[in-house]
């Protein structure tokens, strides 16, 4: 199938998410769509999948213009999509998920009504899944309940789902964000075998290396526009420059670290995940004042649970956490914060801010019950406002007033509000998880500068990031986390290859070395 997008434009209010985008996907091609977060890649794919209707432009399949009012139309035209957040019903089995919407029904030879009744033919559903799974080496059990499967397998279920619908073009939206390097390689092998069967793949990513590894053709999108069509043989620098529009300089101005006393000591920490499994397993690490320790690792290897446990949001099953000399194992969040811990959570809208609260209220979110914000049981609204005005200026939050709901701010400004709140009180330790995810370059620079400033001010800093570039830019020491443990600590001069190997869990240091 030959898929073309011609002049696709999609606006949300005044924002132009896609601005006259052209894309040409040939049969049997793996086409990478490269762009920063927020460049408009996902919007484009949702247009292609019938979830959004384009304001202008055309989708052309094999020379014929088509239009999709909903995903059903797109599916019928042979388009399959693997969403970033999987579209699987967690309590259904693999076979149920795969056949949902195209369920095989039983036809009894003697009873013609059986088909009309729509009685499910579970055996045929199971067989279909098994066949597809075998043909493309996907290795999925049709009877497993999806919520019990690891993410890598869930992704394969999504792929089977598309294949079962005879997808000729498969769209994958940031498929590797949740995968280990090993699983990523498996995915690439699957994509190659799909390609060999004549299907084409649109691969959305912001990771340069993946483009080079698997794509035949690259289209770069920036701020809703196609900026360049490149061959995958292009260098890192060329791809990156096209993606962000200028020379990337993720290197932050920072002097050498001057590590002081130990401010955070984690020893043998074990934490459960939501399903009762072990997310953090006998984890040990020390962070000193005046240094930034970066935790590198593939998402979902226990980083989230680690941070939540440090902050008292998740109970520790074993081990100890000592912060600035106090044993705070199992302490509640308020106690941890009062011990001088600043916290920038991974998901700022869900965990860091109250969207309907004003900026001023959000800036006081964890200090509202202390002087000067309160007097006895009463809140001092004037103090809230005055302090907010000062912090807004200091942290360069772009807003007309401190009294607007924080949800009306851009992502970068929201993150500045969190930083302003967390760094305006005396901080011994800053825990920041994915501090620049989804931010524009300007905000990233600002956030990085502030984090380095906190280090230079004598705080210990623990950064968790799945972006290696960020880890390299900030960390004075890099700790690699895999499967709930630290499996190696390296200086920032370590090679990407070595880090990648460590992150995959393929290689691990001897315990003594790791703990040091």
């Amino acid at each position, binding site marked *: 199938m030959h898929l073309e997008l011609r002049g696709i434009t999609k606006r949300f209010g005044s924002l132009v998410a896609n601005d006259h985008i052209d894309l040409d996907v040939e049969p049997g091609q793996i086409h990478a769509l490269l762009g920063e977060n927020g460049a408009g890649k996902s919007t484009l794919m949702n247009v292609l999948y019938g979830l959004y209707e384009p304001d202008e432009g055309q989708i052309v399949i094999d020379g014929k213009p088509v239009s999709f009012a909903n995903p059903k139309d797109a599916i019928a035209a042979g388009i399959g999509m693997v969403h970033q957040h999987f579209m699987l019903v967690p309590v259904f089995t693999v076979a149920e998920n795969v056949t949902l919407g195209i369920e095989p029904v039983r036809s009894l030879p003697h009873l013609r009504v059986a088909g009309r009744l729509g009685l499910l033919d579970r055996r045929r559903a199971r067989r279909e899944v098994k066949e597809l799974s075998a043909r493309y080496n996907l290795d999925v059990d049709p009877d497993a309940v999806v919520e019990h499967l690891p993410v890598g397998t869930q992704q394969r279920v999504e792929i089977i789902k598309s294949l079962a619908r005879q997808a000729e073009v498969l769209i994958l939206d940031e498929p590797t964000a949740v995968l280990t390097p090993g699983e990523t390689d498996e995915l690439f092998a699957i994509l190659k075998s799909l390609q060999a069967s004549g299907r084409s793949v649109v691969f959305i990513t912001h990771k340069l290396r993946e483009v080079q590894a698997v794509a035949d053709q690259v289209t770069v999108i920036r701020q809703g526009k196609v900026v360049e069509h490149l061959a995958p043989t292009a260098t890192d620098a060329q791809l990156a420059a096209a993606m962000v529009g200028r020379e990337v300089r993720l290197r932050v101005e920072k002097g050498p670290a001057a590590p002081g006393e130990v401010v955070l000591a984690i020893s043998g920490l074990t934490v459960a995940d939501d399903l009762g499994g072990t997310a953090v397993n006998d984890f040990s690490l020390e962070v000193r004042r005046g240094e930034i320790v970066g935790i590198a690792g593939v998402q979902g290897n226990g980083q989230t649970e680690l941070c939540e446990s440090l902050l008292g*949001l998740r109970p520790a099953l074993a081990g100890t956490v000592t912060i600035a000399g106090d044993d705070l194992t199992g302490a509640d*969040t*308020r106690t*941890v914060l009062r011990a001088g811990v600043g916290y920038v959570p991974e998901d700022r809208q869900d965990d860091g801010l*109250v969207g309907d609260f004003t900026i001023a209220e959000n800036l006081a*979110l964890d200090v*509202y*019950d202390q002087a000067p914000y309160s007097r006895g049981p009463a809140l001092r609204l004037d103090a809230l406002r005055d302090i907010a005005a000062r912090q807004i200026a200091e942290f360069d939050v772009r807003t007309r007033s401190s009294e607007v709901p924080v949800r009306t701010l851009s992502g970068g400004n929201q993150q500045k509000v969190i930083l302003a709140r967390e760094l305006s009180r005396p901080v011994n330790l800053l825990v920041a998880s994915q501090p620049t995810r989804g931010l524009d370059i300007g905000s990233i620079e600002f956030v990085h500068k502030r984090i380095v400033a906190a280090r230079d001010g004598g705080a210990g800093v623990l950064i968790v990031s799945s972006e290696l570039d960020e880890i390299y830019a900030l960390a004075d020491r890099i700790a690699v986390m895999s499967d709930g443990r630290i499996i190696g600590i390296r200086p920032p001069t370590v090679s990407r290859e070595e880090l990648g190997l460590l992150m995959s869990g393929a290689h691990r240091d001897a315990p003594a070395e790791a703990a040091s």
Partner: protein
Amino acid sequence: MTAAAPATDPRPSGEHPAEGPKGFVAAFVEAIVEGSSTTVTVLAVVAAIVIGGILIAFSDPHVLGKMGHFFSAPGAALGAAWDSASAAYSAMFRGAIVNFHTVSAASRGGSVTAVFNPISETIVNATPLIFAGLAVMLPFRAGLFNIGATGQFIGGAIVAGYLGFAVSLPPFIHVVVAVAGGFAGGAAVGWFVGFLRARTGANEVIVTIMLNYVAEYFLLYVLGTSPFRRPGRSDPITPFMHGTARLPHLAGASLRINAGILVALAAAAAVSWLLKRSTLGFEIRAVGANARAARGAGMNVERGYILVMLIAGGLAGLAAASVVLGTNYTVDPQIYGTYGIDAITIALLGRGTPLGVVLASLLYGALHAGGVTMVAATQTPIEIVTVIQSVIVLFVAAPPLVRALFRLRTPKQAEAVPLLAAPAVVTEP
């Protein structure tokens, strides 16, 4: 709103009206003049009254008789319909606001208090509704649905009632103790809900609904036990409250208006202060708007749930105290009436603010007080009030429907998220 901002802005959009601290009066004025939501509420009331009128007219046996001759004498039929509805509504007005006969009688030397009787009745009816409405509204701000004001009311009624008839105390002290007992009785029931929610995650909607029934049967059981029996009566009803335990009348014994309304207004003011000006209120609002972020900021969400339900239960218990000690002076198996259910719709109508709850309660109180007069004057069943109330709420809950009905344009300003809109699953990928 900071005065300078719109003035310097060449195109004042007014998208984000700043919400600084407002006085009670300023907030009141703003609630009336501001935006489309108030308009929608007023129009919803109008629409409901019209629908109620149609229902009154076309269920009147007299009108139905005339309807038989509709095609030969349409005028007579429609005239009868109009007469029926207007008679019912004017009786309602006489019962809720003012009866002009009593005014002219007073001007000729008749009773002056009779003039104020309708207003007094409206306020008396509104008093428990204010408490109960606050009992639903406050948890709502913390993200909890209190369907259980009925059960909490019963808890308050049992304790306040018992203290009122079984205990002897000096005047003033007795009524204070009994009212406090009402608060405590309701608070205990509310606490249980909060406790279950905090400790086990039990959905408070289900728990409160079920607890209402448990409380209703428990009340029936308690009233059957000997300490609660009124001597000489075989039916389940308590003895009368001691005089010392009764809420004092505000305008003489011939008008039922009593100190309960003062307590209710004080409670509304207290809840308003709590939400806007206190650290606890800050916590409650944060928990309601985003519990995860509140937790991340070190707030004790569970403690918040328990406290909020405790206070809410107490407020519902005060509603019971205002009925038991203010007007009924006894506890019977139907004492809880429909206060708990009305409270839910009042919280909705009041758009989640204490002032709104007071205004909505007064409206409901007027409908109830007027309804009683209407029944006496026109034999229109009192349930019409229930129908009107529920239709008002349905309209208020669905602004687009009201706008369509009255051909209003959708306001340019992004509509405030409807107060009771549920968290939606949005197709945002």
